[in-house]
């Protein structure tokens, strides 16, 4: 017997109401913009810039469109950040915000002809940063069961706050090995917890029009022949291998609608790293530096040169 689904008033309004758009979260990655109801996976080995990108996304989410006639081009949305890796640093996020705002203020001052452009004071900026940080909720999870229960509890939070547009998870693969071990011999048991988490996540995405960003660590590597191994250390972008090795359960694979694959190349001599991201086999490759605490995207013609 199937029961008709009941819905509370809050759920109804949360489902139908519009949430801030994630359309312009980062044109460099998502050219035409995100439509909503998307699950974006950020995949890569350690130190390839996945968490850094998430921080950049948070900055773009929680900033408003403009502040005191300074163009910030943010989404003005609220964000839930689930930290399963225990790597999130609020102080680092605050300094990223500050850098982003100061750069925008600098640009605004250059563009304005009038001499009466008023630069916001440092105290004013700090208060503004705090105001922005209020739009962020951080939840830390220590086990996959806690992650499932937390995802269930999010429904209530999302219902009550019509401004939440994004859920970020860093990282979705944090409990992979523990689940595998606890599951014993059976594959179904090993994947049981992740499947439940995905079910709930999919409900949040589809019912409440939430965009999900999740990092996935590169825990496995394909066995490669010698020729390919040499390429691994390549410093030329064209030779990089943006292969993706799936190891998560089917339900997660079904959920993912877009994937960014992360690599980096060492720039000979300078000791710097250039981060290279591929957003799929057909689309273009995005490259960026992380410099002065901020992601700096390279333009098209700079891209393939080193």
């Amino acid at each position, binding site marked *: 017997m199937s029961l008709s689904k009941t819905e509370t008033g809050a759920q109804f309004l949360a489902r139908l109401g519009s949430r801030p758009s994630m359309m312009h979260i980062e044109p460099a990655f998502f050219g035409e913009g995100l439509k909503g109801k998307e699950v974006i996976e950020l995949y890569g080995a350690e130190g390839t810039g996945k968490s850094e990108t998430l921080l950049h996304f948070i900055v773009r989410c*929680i900033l408003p469109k403009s502040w005191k006639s300074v163009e910030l081009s943010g989404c003005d949305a609220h964000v839930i950040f689930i930290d399963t890796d225990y*790597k999130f640093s609020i102080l680092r996020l605050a300094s990223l915000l500050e850098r982003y705002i100061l750069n925008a203020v600098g640009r605004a001052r250059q563009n304005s002809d009038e001499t009466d452009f008023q630069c916001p004071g440092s105290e004013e900026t700090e208060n503004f940063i705090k*105001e922005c940080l209020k739009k962020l909720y*951080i939840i830390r999870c220590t086990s996959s069961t*806690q992650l499932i*229960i937390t995802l269930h509890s999010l429904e209530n939070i999302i219902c009550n706050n019509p401004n939440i547009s994004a859920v970020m998870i860093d990282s979705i693969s944090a*409990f992979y090995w523990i689940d595998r071990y606890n599951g014993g011999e059976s594959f179904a048991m090993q994947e049981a917890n992740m499947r439940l988490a995905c079910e709930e996540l999919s409900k949040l995405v589809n019912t409440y029009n939430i965009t999900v960003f999740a990092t996935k660590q590169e825990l496995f590597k394909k066995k490669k022949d010698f020729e390919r191994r040499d390429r691994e250390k390549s410093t030329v972008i064209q030779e990089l291998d943006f292969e993706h090795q799936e190891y998560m359960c089917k339900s997660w694979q079904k959920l993912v609608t877009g994937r960014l694959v992360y690599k980096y190349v060492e720039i000979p001599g300078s*000791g710097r790293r250039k981060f290279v991201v591929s957003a799929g086999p057909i689309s273009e490759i995005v490259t960026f530096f992380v410099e002065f605490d901020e992601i700096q995207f390279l333009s098209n013609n700079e891209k393939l040169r080193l």
Partner: protein
Amino acid sequence: MALLKAGLCTALNNTVLENLRSVGIKTTLDFITKDLEAVAQQASVPYKDLLAIRRVILAQYSGFPLNGAELYDNGVLTMAILSTGCTSIDELLDGGLYTAEVTEVAGSIAAGKTQMCFTSAASVICKTKQNVIFVDTCGSFSAERISIILEENGESEPEQFLSQVRCFTAFDVYELIGALETIRHNKQRQMDPFFESLKLLIVDNVASVIYPILGGPQSDGQSLITIIGQKLKILAVEFSLAVLITNNLVSSEWGGTLSASLGRVWSHVPHTRLVILPHGNKHTAETPERETRREMMIVKSSRGPTNKCCNFIIASSRLSSVR
């Protein structure tokens, strides 16, 4: 995973518990993931009660959402940067060891990993006046050497500082997990004043307890690595500790460069990774006989630029920067 227990809330008494068990709901996870309307019919428990139980479970077992602004205020208050006792390494690390972060030092045999631990411990206990826990997995701890470093730092009575260091020995992976749990327990209970001002946790050497568990069934070893990584990070973040761990260097699969050992899963654990480069250790004509030069490189950082290098000297007992 927690079992459902009577007394969790008023609605969850023994009869309700029995009814729920009869339809296969035993743990909190079973309860949360089931459709309550169906459960109400099958187990003949009032829907209202089920909703109340669900609310309590969600409140007790989910992660608590922290507001970014509050976390920021709290972060500003609890954040500290601890000096490693060697200026050039401090500069490389942008000030020193950060609390709420795991810093890893990887180096080959006799590269100066343990020296760096001792120098940092000495600096924290005498300059910062905070306490240090040293988890020793390979018999490397020596109170004597710490007291020599303190003496060289100009302390006339080094013994008085040594009560600020505690040493735990852990010779296998389960003992290490036990030691980390003990620290967490003591931190939470707030009974022992030593743990109140604990700021630095050192694990020297993390690789020597993990090597023996690798090579069995793959998921055993990898899950234990994940658990240790998790426990270290939770200690660092929840109690605002700086965690310093040491690791070995191995050459990668097909020769070439040396990198930190323990593989892919571990590589995601530390926030910051330093490598003591092997080619830096040679005596040159101008260095005095008892000094050894080393070069250190920062290969991973969640804060600043990587691939920077610095030089330091191992002089008789402690590390110091190149003059």
